[in-house]
């Protein structure tokens, strides 16, 4: 076996030891760097394994191009894809790879095995691979190296006893070379285990898998090993599309979010009033929960309009309605979203820009939806983001991951200081119970429900909670008409609280009763008054009669006394006369 003279000059142990103390090398993939607590181990090989289509090459290209963008130079060794195809990929993800190539900051080594090569004899040596890589690294002064689809080597050559030893030699050399290196392999026949890549060569092993559940594919990344440093050990879903690789970066704490005293109007004066007069705080999360047709989207659109009118930019991520549908439907309620809608993100007339982003592809997994949402928020940095609805997603995948992702999304948006309005569709049979389990992070929770009575449907609105705001405890009626959205106080009367037409009916009914009662009351009072008068008159009469009778009796008595006295006098006179 041949040893390269250039390599023998540098004792492996020294360079390895030296690199142990270097800070990690960022891949430029934010979420991945977070999981790896900084990035790939400096000056060490990292193994990236996963089946075809899991995104290995994209991660590798990103790692290289981000490094080049930051002023480094890099070598990409391809064992599978044509250099031209790789350049196309990289440019598709927005990296000017051809320019890097022309500027001598990137070199692509084409190491695809030549299938027409005839193999004769028992011995082949792979020293040429090392010589070429070493030469490229040296002439570029490259600091980043990628060996893409290295298992292609094995399939390219007949299975000779010497091949195994030679490949091992290649990996040993890579390890000793002490360059920050990303080696990608497929899952083909456990290549990485057989050559000790997993256990011995690589200081860091990252596995990519794709899971299909409910016919929806989710890509998952896991850091299997990371020598000499800590790493996140969970499985992390990630997104792979035209925008490149996107992992949901989980950040330490949400408590760092900026706290604002400024309020954001809901655009509905009645609702603002229910929330202490001015609407929710900037940077808060408002959840609008309600059954179908209760007006969640309309309230969300009202929020959007109010923010745009206030000169704030809005990102509206619609998971159900298309852009045209949304604009048309809201126009019927007097909300003209088209006025604010900008595709370029620019502003006009001091109005905030409204960016409508429909994400309707049902074939996407929840994670993909949410990651798209997070990425959009990062890209556009709006003041207000509307997620309409977040429940459709959670309903599709009932697993706890979905809820965790949702929480993570809300946490992230909150951390960015962005105000959120999310809608949640409640099931008709669910008696208004939210299944999202996100209430802990919700600042303002508004519940909408249908109230069906006497052949009529009314919409009711309640503020379930509103952190830091004086709120209305009353269930109010919410009306949607051509004239817009309106909050109406309910009718509180005899027999409970009523809404809608019933409210009016009940009101009329009650008014009649009242006037009748007033009449009755008046009559009663009159009677009562009359009764008193009669009583008084009677008393006066009785008194008069009494007086008359008394006087008559007095007179009678006086007469009798007078007569008696007269008789007595007469008798006395007669007696004196006899005597």
């Amino acid at each position, binding site marked *: 076996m*041949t040893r390269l003279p250039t390599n023998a000059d540098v004792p492996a142990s020294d360079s390895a030891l030296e690199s142990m103390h270097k800070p990690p090398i960022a891949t430029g993939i934010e979420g991945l760097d977070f999981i790896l607590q900084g990035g790939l181990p400096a000056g060490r090989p990292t193994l990236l394994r996963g089946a075809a289509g899991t995104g290995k090459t994209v991660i590798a290209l990103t790692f290289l191009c981000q490094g080049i963008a930051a002023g480094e130079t890099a070598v990409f060794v391809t064992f599978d894809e044509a250099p031209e195809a790789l350049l196309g990929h990289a440019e598709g993800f927005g990296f000017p790879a051809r320019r890097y190539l022309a500027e001598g900051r990137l070199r692509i080594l084409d*190491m695809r095995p030549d299938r027409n090569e*005839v193999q*004769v004899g028992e*011995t082949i*040596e792979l020293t*040429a691979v090392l*010589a070429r890589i070493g030469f490229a690294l040296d002439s570029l002064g490259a600091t980043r190296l990628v060996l893409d689809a290295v298992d292609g080597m094995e399939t390219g050559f007949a299975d000779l006893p010497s091949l195994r030893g030679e490949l091992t030699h290649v990996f040993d050399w890579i390890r000793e070379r002490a360059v920050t290196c990303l080696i990608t392999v497929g899952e083909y026949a456990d290549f990485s285990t057989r050559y000790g890549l997993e256990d011995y060569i690589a200081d860091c092993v990252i596995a990519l898998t794709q899971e299909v559940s409910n016919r929806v594919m989710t890509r998952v990344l896991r850091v299997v090993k990371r020598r000499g440093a800590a790493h996140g050990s969970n499985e992390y879903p990630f997104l792979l599309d035209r925008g490149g690789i996107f992992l949901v970066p989980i950040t330490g704490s949400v408590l760092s979010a900026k706290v604002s005293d400024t309020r954001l109007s809901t655009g509905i004066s009645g609702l603002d009033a229910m929330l202490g007069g001015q609407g929710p705080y900037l940077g808060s999360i408002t959840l609008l929960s309600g059954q179908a047709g209760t007006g969640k989207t309309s309230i969300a659109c009202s929020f959007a309009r109010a923010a745009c009118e206030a000169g704030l930019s809005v990102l509206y991520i619609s998971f159900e309605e298309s852009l045209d549908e949304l604009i048309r439907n809201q126009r019927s309620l007097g909300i003209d979203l088209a006025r604010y809608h900008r595709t370029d993100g620019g502003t006009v007339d001091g109005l905030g820009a409204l960016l409508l982003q429909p994400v309707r592809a049902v074939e996407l997994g929840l994670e993909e939806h949410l990651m798209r949402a997070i990425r959009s928020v990062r890209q556009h940095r709006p003041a207000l983001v509307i997620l309409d609805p977040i429940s459709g997603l959670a309903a599709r995948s009932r697993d706890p991951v979905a809820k965790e992702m949702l929480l993570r999304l809300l946490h992230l948006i909150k951390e960015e200081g962005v105000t959120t309005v999310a809608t949640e569709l409640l099931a008709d049979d669910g008696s208004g119970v939210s299944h999202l389990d996100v209430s802990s992070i919700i600042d303002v929770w508004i519940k909408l429900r249908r109230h069906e009575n006497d052949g009529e449907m009314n919409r009711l609105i309640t503020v379930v909670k509103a952190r830091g705001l004086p709120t209305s405890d009353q269930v109010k009626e919410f009306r949607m008409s051509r004239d817009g959205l309106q909050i109406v106080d309910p009718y509180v009367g005899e027999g409970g609280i009523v809404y809608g037409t019933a409210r009016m009916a009940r009101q009329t009914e009650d008014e009649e009763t009242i006037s009748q009662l007033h009449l009755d009351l008046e009559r009663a009072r009159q009677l009562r008054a009359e009764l008193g008068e009669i009583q008084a008159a009677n008393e006066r009469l009785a008194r008069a009669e009494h007086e008359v009778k008394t006087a008559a009796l007095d007179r009678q008595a006086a007469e009798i006394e007078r007569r008696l006295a007269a008789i007595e006098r007469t008798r006395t006179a007669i007696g004196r006369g006899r005597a």
Partner: protein
Amino acid sequence: MTTHLLRLYIAGRTPAADRAVRNLEQLAVEVATADLVLQIEVIDILKRPQLAEDERILATPVVIRKLPPPMRRVVGDLSEREKVLIGLDLKVD
């Protein structure tokens, strides 16, 4: 008369490289006729790595028939004469 240009790339003077050089030189002597001349160049890619890059060489020793076209490649220590002749598409009467 046809001249065949054969380039043998080796990576250092390894036993396999030596065997390949020997086998190829012997073959050149054996197949040489008045009409067929085999011209052999031995290149050590450790000394000239850019040539390994240009020829996209992975495994050594490898012999490449540069002339006449089309190009033919045979990798290994060239120990089996017949397979080498077929691989390099050398017509021997």
